[in-house]
């Protein structure tokens, strides 16, 4: 497998991969004539003078089709899946991919149509200078001496010119003069007429839209734009919150859409130096370096003298502003540099400097210029620290401003639209390009799916679709199957002895109605230290122990990790950790204990409830991955497969990805193991397999289609020569980067998000896909989950595919309600997360048949 495919499928290293040829070229310009094949990269931007041949120039222009305008200067690029056309391969959805079940509902989504005048096209010209000019700025200055010929609207990147109007001739020769009086002949040649939907145009729209936001006096921070004029402050922590927008322009169906969502930026009017002073005061000189590193590393800062953001990677304890760095040919101290360059005085000459490893490429695609040294006094903190996140008051204040009701959200977006349509400068910009935005949100037709019936203990019941939760309905009903607790342990610290006792009593009380037989647990006290907890576990957990309950005094991660590590790897036993705080409130204890009892039952192999699945011999597979930070960036893949008709028993496997390996390669073995387990349980192999592959980012779809699908097919084949099965593979792109929010047409109900199912008007015509909103949200808007069927040889009707997916959203046993994604995805996610966060090792295979990670 090539490095490129790997980068694509992992979604990392975006924008770096194609840089390689450019970087090489910049270093060795002499190679240029012989390396035409490589010219697609970034190196074309600033070739050494004279090194660029006529042919090379032609190549460059042709190559531009695949390269985005925004890529210049090493910025990240947006990936599009626009080339992924899977639908044409699936006979049964060629005609229609819409479902039929349910009642119609009108929805509004956060999309606006971009309108262009009829027969609109973007004209792409290649611009050639004779003699060749090195500087891009000069090239652009020379070209725009001819504005009367070219028109007011133009975009030029140094070699390629875009115009909204066609020039009179296909080739226009212009003459300019440099400041030095040198005559330059400029040839402008038409190379392409781009229809509104071409990928280059999409890039162009996005760039233009950014310009528009800037005209509207929005500030760019990172990749998004925020409005500085109406901030919200939380003085206690010097927080300032700016409202803003995340936007992108994409093609959906036949129209170009602006997808925009409200976003907020948390800024702090506190410099890193202020922060350091406070910290030193709090923790003393001794512990300061350690605490400082812990608090600061990883934070994003914003510099005072430009709008750049950096991630703090390290602290240079041996550097102060009096240190010097090389600027051009001379050494200059940081102190003097900021004084002369920006008129900024450094008040504390002893502050240590911050280090950021800049990944951004240097000018003209050169490798990064090395780590940036930053002066704390000139760096503002951004975002929230973990400490703040844990502070309920801050989060409450924040939530009151950032959590918006559907109406508020809609009105914010509408305000943006009206600003766009009212602002004369913006309109001017748009009309010179012959474009405009529709001034209302996109309306869509969705369907509300009928709610499912939950089957439990020989009975079936319905739930309230507006809350999508059946905690109340299941009270008093026995579970499908219960594991009796005969031999189990409860660990607690001395301080929590009392709560442990009351938990035990309450568990006993609630387990009866659920149908769980429960013996008294063996109570074991441990000292509040990690080593003594581990020792207690080692001494007491035996082979026949069915369940271990540990009451943790705080929600500190290390003890939790220690318990899980030991009981998932070394001594495979289902375990349940509870933070003492959760069970310290007597009035909530019944509810909590019920949840704990349910969870313990699942972990030992019990089954809670089910929904009707009208397909037989079916195996559902869920796949997700987690990118581990602690284990040296080893990614973790988890696979979960159903073992029975009711989707109540699951086989789970987790693998750690090896370097240079595709996650799916590692999971192939797991899939085979799952099929074997299915065979063991059912005495037959499944005749139909449906795979839900989560964790696919935008832009990775192609690699899933090209690489993962054949891998899955192949591993199924290994189960036997004649074994054939129907296979569906769905990717659920957990609508990550930009959510598509829906607002219900009915104004009456502010919390419209319910157990509903909206299949949207085939948003992407070339794929077989659908959107589902399964979860209920109490507050705010809901982002639907987007499902793409990338492979289907089963012929299952779209309606059934959608309903089955919806049914599976009911089957997550850690939540007595409907979840956002199908249960297998949620399980796989939970497993991968547990392993990635706490265990960092492959769990013991004795646990494979249990939902031990819940």
């Amino acid at each position, binding site marked *: 497998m090539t490095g490129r495919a790997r980068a694509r499928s992992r979604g990392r290293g975006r924008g770096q991969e194609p840089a390689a040829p450019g970087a090489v070229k910049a270093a060795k310009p002499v190679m240029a004539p012989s390396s035409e094949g490589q010219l697609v990269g970034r190196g074309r931007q600033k070739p050494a003078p004279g090194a660029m041949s006529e042919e090379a120039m032609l190549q460059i222009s042709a190559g531009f089709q695949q390269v985005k305008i925004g890529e210049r200067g090493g910025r990240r690029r947006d990936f599009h899946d626009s080339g992924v056309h899977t639908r044409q391969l699936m006979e049964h959805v060629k005609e229609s991919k819409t479902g039929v079940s349910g009642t119609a509902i009108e929805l509004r989504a956060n999309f606006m149509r971009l309108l262009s005048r009829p027969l609109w096209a973007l004209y792409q010209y290649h611009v050639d200078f004779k003699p060749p000019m090195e500087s891009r700025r000069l090239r652009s200055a020379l070209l725009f001496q001819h504005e009367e010929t070219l028109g007011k609207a133009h975009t030029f990147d140094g070699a390629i010119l875009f115009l909204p109007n066609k020039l009179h001739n296909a080739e226009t020769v212009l003459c300019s003069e440099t400041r030095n009086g040198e005559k330059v002949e400029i040839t402008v040649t038409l190379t392409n007429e781009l229809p509104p939907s071409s990928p280059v145009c999409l890039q162009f729209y996005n760039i233009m839209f950014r310009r528009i936001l800037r005209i509207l006096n929005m500030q760019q921070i990172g990749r998004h734009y925020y409005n500085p004029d109406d901030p919200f402050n939380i003085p206690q922590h010097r927080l300032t919150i700016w409202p803003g927008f995340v936007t992108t322009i994409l093609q959906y169906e036949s129209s170009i859409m602006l997808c925009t969502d409200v976003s907020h930026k948390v800024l702090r009017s506190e410099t890193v130096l202020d922060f350091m002073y406070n910290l030193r005061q709090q923790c003393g000189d001794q512990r300061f370096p350690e605490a400082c590193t812990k608090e600061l590393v990883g934070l994003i800062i914003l510099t005072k003298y430009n709008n750049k953001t950096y991630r703090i990677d390290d602290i240079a304890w041996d550097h102060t502003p009096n240190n010097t760095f090389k600027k051009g040919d001379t050494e200059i101290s940081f102190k003097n540099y900021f004084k002369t360059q920006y*008129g900024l005085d450094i008040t504390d000459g002893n502050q240590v400097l911050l280090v950021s490893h800049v990944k951004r490429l240097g000018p003209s695609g050169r490798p990064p210029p090395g780590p940036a040294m930053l002066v704390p006094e000139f760096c503002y903190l951004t975002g929230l620290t973990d400490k703040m996140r844990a502070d309920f008051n801050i989060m409450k204040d924040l939530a009151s401003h950032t959590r918006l009701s559907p109406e508020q959200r809609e009105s914010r977006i509408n305000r943006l639209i009206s600003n766009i349509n009212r602002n004369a400068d913006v309109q001017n910009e748009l009309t010179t390009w012959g474009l405009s935005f529709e001034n209302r949100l996109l309306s869509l037709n969705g369907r509300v799916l009928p709610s499912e019936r939950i089957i439990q203990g020989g009975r079936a019941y319905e739930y309230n679709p507006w809350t999508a939760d059946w905690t109340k309905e299941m009270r008093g009903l026995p579970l499908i199957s219960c594991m009796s607790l005969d031999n189990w342990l409860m660990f607690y610290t001395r301080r929590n002895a009392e709560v442990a006792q009351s938990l035990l009593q309450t568990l006993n009380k609630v387990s009866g109605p659920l149908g769980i037989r429960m013996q008294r647990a063996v109570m074991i006290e441990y000292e509040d230290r990690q080593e003594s907890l581990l020792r207690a576990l080692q001494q007491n957990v035996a082979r026949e122990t069915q369940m271990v309950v540990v009451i943790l005094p705080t929600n500190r991660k290390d003890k939790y990790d220690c318990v899980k590590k030991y009981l998932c790897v070394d001594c495979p036993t289902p375990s349940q950790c509870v933070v003492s705080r959760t069970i310290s409130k007597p009035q909530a204890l019944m509810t909590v204990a019920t949840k704990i009892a349910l969870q313990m039952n699942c972990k030992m192999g019990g089954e809670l409830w089910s929904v009707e699945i009208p397909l037989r011999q079916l195996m559902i597979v869920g796949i997700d991955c987690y990118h581990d930070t602690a284990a040296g960036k080893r990614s973790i893949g988890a696979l979960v497969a159903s073992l029975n008709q009711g989707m109540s028993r699951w086989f789970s496997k987790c693998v750690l990805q090896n370097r240079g390996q595709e996650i799916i390669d590692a999971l192939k073995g797991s899939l085979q193991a799952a099929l074997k387990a299915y065979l063991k349980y059912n005495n037959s192999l499944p005749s139909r397999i449906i795979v839900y592959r989560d964790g696919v980012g935008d832009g990775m779809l192609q690699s899933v289609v090209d690489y993962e699908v054949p891998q899955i097919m192949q591993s199924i084949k290994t189960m036997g020569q004649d074994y054939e099965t129907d296979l569906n593979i769905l990717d659920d792109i957990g609508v990550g980067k930009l959510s598509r929010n829906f607002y219900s047409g009915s104004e009456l109900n502010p919390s419209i998000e319910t157990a509903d199912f909206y299949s949207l008007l085939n948003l992407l015509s070339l794929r077989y896909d659908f959107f589902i909103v399964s979860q209920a949200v109490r507050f705010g808007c809901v982002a639907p989950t987007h499902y793409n069927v990338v492979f289907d040889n089963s012929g299952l009707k779209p309606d059934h595919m959608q309903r089955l997916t919806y049914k599976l959203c009911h089957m997550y046993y850690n939540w007595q309600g409907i979840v956002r994604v199908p249960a297998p995805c949620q399980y796989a996610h939970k497993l991968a997360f547990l392993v990635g966060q706490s265990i960092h090792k492959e769990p013991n295979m004795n646990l494979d048949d249990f939902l031990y990670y819940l």
Partner: protein
Amino acid sequence: MTTPFSPPLYMQRYQFVIDYVKTYRPKKVIDFGCAECCLLKKLKFHRNGIQLLVGVDINSVVLLKRMHTLAPLVSDYLQPSDGPLTIELYQGSVTEREPCTRGFDLVTCVELIEHLELVEVERFTEVVFGYMAPGAVIVSTPNAEFNPLLPGLRGFRNYDHKFEWTRAEFQTWANRVCQEHGYSVYFTGVGEAVGHWRDVGFCTQIAVFQRINQPMSNAERLEPSVYKLVYRVVYPSLCDNNIYQRTLVSEVLYEAQHLRQEWLRRMNMDCNNNAHFFAPPLMEVFHHGVQADARDWQPVYQQGSTICVPLARVWSSPRVRALCGSVQRLREELVVDARVRMSADGTVLNLPVYDDVEEEPEEEKDEEEDVKTVSGIGNNMEEDWDRELESCGNA
């Protein structure tokens, strides 16, 4: 053409203007021929009290392209400056009279006049010195006597130069200007030659004119009538009342909250590290211990469910002091603000003792809430998708 100067000559010219601004602290500065707005961008950082910064260029395309580099930075919003700053860019010609350009403290014309025809220089002189009559003018232009030292140079330094003056020519012009319009002038420059070439003078010659008469009174700003406004931005500053109020209140609340936290922490330590309970306020102890101390050091204390932070304590924070001239002013500002709770006499800020505790989400809802039945598939109808599929395939 490479010039052997370090830092580069254009930088030295900008630095010259910056140094001038630093010394004379003009409030209103106009830069003619600002082109890519480099000087304006520098002056925006080296503000030294500039309140109005105007750039004029005849080419609006270049202004449009570069104008956003003059926009405030995020940090300008996070910590608004004390003084106001407005930046405006105009498209217009230096040979035209524009009423809104009158009454400036400083006009800079960096490498501008040599781009004008000599006739236009006359008009420019009349407009700038006669009509606008600013407090000071900085004019820089190439020194033709230096040209032989520039390697490979034939003719003028730039194709667009209409002339390049010797020192004598420049000074003749300048002296005439002074006579006619009532200015004094001194000559200097940047970019010195080395060794025996020294006597050719600076590479760039600079004339600094000072108005002899009282500078024009700060006339009210007029709307431009001849020039075209291309860009205008008002920087956030503490002179804006809303921003001032917001900044001050934030600062006060930050300080007060910190005092409160500190007090709570101390209270907690007093009762044996038990994080869950606060000791009854040890008010007397504090009062006694403190009153003897300095008079303005007043203790934080608890009264019922409020913690009282004396205004004087908040006032002692340097950041608050910097924002507010006096305690009286501080009090007046805070009394009118809804975000601050003050005692009746305005000497104490009231803050709650307890943070709101996390409320458990309402678990128990009305039992009566009826379960809505949803439309759709009949409750008892059993589905079989397998069979449907088969029948579909057969048909």
